[in-house]
């Protein structure tokens, strides 16, 4: 069973959150995931 959107993990001392779409882990800060909204499909719920 793969990760689902919003899952959080700590790897290499960094906190990651799974974003689907596009289906990858991104760095997350207390403010939220660090996403560059260049393509609407990349941002969950966009």
């Amino acid at each position, binding site marked *: 069973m793969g990760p689902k959107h919003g899952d959080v993990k700590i790897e290499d001392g*960094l906190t990651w959150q799974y974003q689907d779409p596009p289906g990858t882990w991104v760095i997350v800060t207390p403010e939220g995931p660090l996403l560059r909204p260049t393509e609407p499909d990349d941002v969950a719920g966009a």
Partner: protein
Amino acid sequence: MITDGTPGGGPAGSWQLTAELTPKTAEAEAAATTGPAEPAAPAWDDAAADLRTTVKWMVAAFAAVGAAMFAKGFVTTPELSWADDTWQLVLAWIVGAAGVVGVGVLIYQAVQLLRPTAYELGTLPAEYVAEIDANPRFHLPSDVDTLADYLTRLQALRVQATRTTEEAARQEGVLDAATQAVPPDPDAVAAARLEVRRATVRRDSVRMALAVYSSVRETLLDRAGYWKPDRGLNRGGTIMLAAGILAAVGGIGYQLLLASPAESGDDTGGSASAPSIGELVRSDTAAGEELWRQLRLAECQADPASPRIAVVVASGTGTAADPYVVSTVPSATCRAATFSVVDDVARVSVPEPAPITYEPAEAVQSP
């Protein structure tokens, strides 16, 4: 998959660095990639440079004042000899040496502030690190609370930046290969494009985080460069004050000790500046009686029973080194004589001016 809490659990209202999360220009994006190699921002550098310029002028001023103060003493050294003025010269050398040491300490302290120091995150001043850890929300990104945590994450982000960049480039190659495949495979191209998008999103998130961390690094290093001269000036202030006082006391004392005595060569050693009328009272000693006998001073006494005569006091203090020089007041019975006398033989008293206040009585009308 490891699920470890949810985001948003940090302190609220203190994310002052979030505005830097998204590079908006090509330069900012480049900085996100090459952040760790960027030089520190110039603001605190300028402040440190200004401070150092001030200190540099202070050093020049100290040196000039010291040179003028001590050189003047050597140049205008009066007619002092080691034989006659031994203690004066010894004291002058001691005080002068203390003054030179004071000026030297002043210059040393100031030069310490001029010495440039290169900092890296692992060699920040301990006091500065303590302040960072005490106020992490002011100094550090919002997701770390100590400098050690910040360093760990910065290192991890650098590793991830390299790794995700390479992965994105690799996926780009896969996409290019799929696009150029003959015959074309739309499913393979779509799959490759999705992987490129995933790798790009992942890489960009790392770059944005690294941009924040790199910006923080520059600020920390920049402020550390100002920290040393600033705190050095504060910490060395007491020492510099003490050294300044020592230099001033030494320089002034040196000048005073080498100063010539008052121009009193024409005044033949006496302390009295003008002759005055006084009274010479014989001591009850053999020397006093001999003086009285040889100079026949008894004939000058107003009261034969009281061995005291009126004299004109030319000078002197009554000591062996500075005896009184007195003259009798000639009369029909008292012959003129001028002689020296010390307190052991006879004492001289000069009456002090005594103010007399007179208030006329109110007129009373007689009956």
